[in-house]
């Protein structure tokens, strides 16, 4: 990668509607760009697929956490009631599993739920105090009413002039260079 461009994060185009940014992302993808990201004030159906993001591991991670909660929760109670502090209540079995179901369930939900949130935050790379896209002054409207598509300098096809021209051909409301 040429040294001039290493001070760049990418080039960003601004759009006014979700349809426009979705189209732009699809066109960029058809054009052969692979390293890009889109930004929108609310989740836009199909936009993440259009920028080449298809699958997240979150459901699998949450499943594992839920199973851990279930097994761990039951074992906790089993250990306490059978091994740690066996209490003979009228000759009833120590492993009185039906009574252990509510807490097993609660701990399943607790582990799975907390993991879902934490996994989302970590996989998204948050907390991230600094990110180059915030260098674009217009970008603060991404949390208001504007939609953005950023083709990143890390893309093998990236070339500052050509990419800029390409983005301009999509009729954006504006194009800006994103400094690192």
């Amino acid at each position: 990668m040429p040294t001039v461009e290493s001070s760049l994060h990418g080039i960003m185009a601004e759009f006014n509607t979700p349809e426009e940014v979705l189209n732009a992302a699809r066109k960029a993808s058809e054009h052969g760009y692979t390293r890009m990201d889109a930004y929108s004030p609310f989740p836009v159906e199909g936009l993440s697929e259009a920028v080449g993001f298809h699958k997240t591991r979150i459901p699998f991670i949450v499943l594992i956490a839920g199973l851990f909660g279930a097994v761990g929760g039951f074992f906790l109670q089993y250990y306490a009631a059978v091994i740690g502090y066996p209490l003979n209540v009228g000759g009833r079995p120590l492993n009185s599993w039906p009574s252990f179901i509510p807490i097993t369930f609660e701990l399943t939900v607790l582990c799975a739920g907390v993991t879902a949130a934490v996994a989302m935050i970590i996989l998204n790379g948050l907390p991230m105090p600094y990110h180059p896209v915030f260098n674009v002054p217009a970008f603060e409207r991404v949390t208001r009413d504007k939609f953005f598509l950023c083709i990143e300098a890390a893309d093998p096809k990236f070339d500052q002039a050509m990419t800029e021209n390409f983005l301009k051909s999509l009729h954006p409301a504006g194009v800006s260079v994103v400094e690192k």
Partner: protein
Amino acid sequence: METIEHTAVYEQIQPLIAEGHDYGSITDKISSDVLEKKTPKSLFLAFAVTFSLVMLLLFAVVYLLYEGVGIWGIRIPIGWGFAIVNFVWWIGIGHAGTLISAILLLLHQHWRNSINRFAEAMTLFAVACAGMFPLLHLGRPWVFYWIIPMPDTMRLWPNFRSPLVWDVFAVTTYATISFVFWFVGLIPDLATMRDRAKQKWKKIVYGMLAMGWRNSAKHWHRYETAYLLLAGLATPLVVSVHSVVSFDFAVGIVPGWHTTIFPPYFVAGAIYSGFAMVLSLVIPVRKLYHLEDFITTRHLDYMAKVMLATGLIVAYGYAIETFCAFYSGNRFEHDMMINRMFGPYGPFYWMLILFNITLPQLLWLKKFRQTPWLLFVMSIIINIGMWLERFVIIVSSLARDFLPSSWAIFTPTKWDWFTYFGTIGFFLTAMVLFIRLLPMISIFELRTLLPSSSNGKGQHN
């Protein structure tokens, strides 16, 4: 898709967001209410009153810790008294928040987007109030950790066969998941606040809380997955929590408690009282902050209908409870019901029927569902009614148990009332701070309600 057709049909009646709004205007209205708008005088007044009640709570709790639970009106056989009445009442109120945020999300009820943030905050604060009561009722709250399973020098473990231990797990899980759900929902809006804030310190505070969220499409993808999973997990959770609360009673053998109808009827009652509380809060706040564009009469109408429906389930619960008491042929159950209706607490029972069953039938009339002040009055009536329900179940059952020689009458002391009103003050103080400091309507979810946001397949959630 069917849901979209539904939305289209409803939109002819009344849109979920008033005409003339776009992404920008929604964002500006809700964010500037926090960032720019001068705090309304009435909010200061509300804070003054509610915070005084918090001080009352503090006073009552300090004296309780000094003197012991004997300052309350609880006397054997009525060991549960106000503390447990209030616990069940508060936790029930919380349930509407989770219903609105999780169950209505899974059911594609888009109108929830205007009220879910508010309702979730309400849940959080209601659960905080609920949690105080069993702790204070312990008598020695400072050893509450004995109920947490951990190896200790006494070599004791909690008895996991007891519904009271289930309760601890259910309520703490519920509080944790409610907080996580609420905070995850807040992240994109905190980023909005960060970008709208003009003062540097506000930017820093909201920016730290938003953790660098930048509305990336990839992030949204994971976000929606996680949010949906959380909703899917919170849905059975909310049903389980009040079921477990009802087990506290149903697993016991006290007449009037030992019945299988309790879990469903408690859950319905919880949602009933919760929607009533949402309405009691939303109606004044909507007026104070001029949110009629986002929380329309259509929203109020829907909430009133949910109340009506859950109220009827509660009515069915009362009917079956009464029927079974007589049909069972059990002498104690039979006497308990006669005593509940015509005994020393009889007036409260009939008041409860009036407040919870009879008066809410007015909600069949459109006028009562769509006139804010009438609905407000109705919601207060239902809140009182649901409190009376718990009072009647707990106190009238305990006051006359199996042995007439041990019968007694429960009289709440001023400390019972101080603690109760104190928690109401705590709850409202927290609500006041919440609407002052955070966007009380989910901005990003509201954006998806605009017709222009539906691209191709339609709206988010």
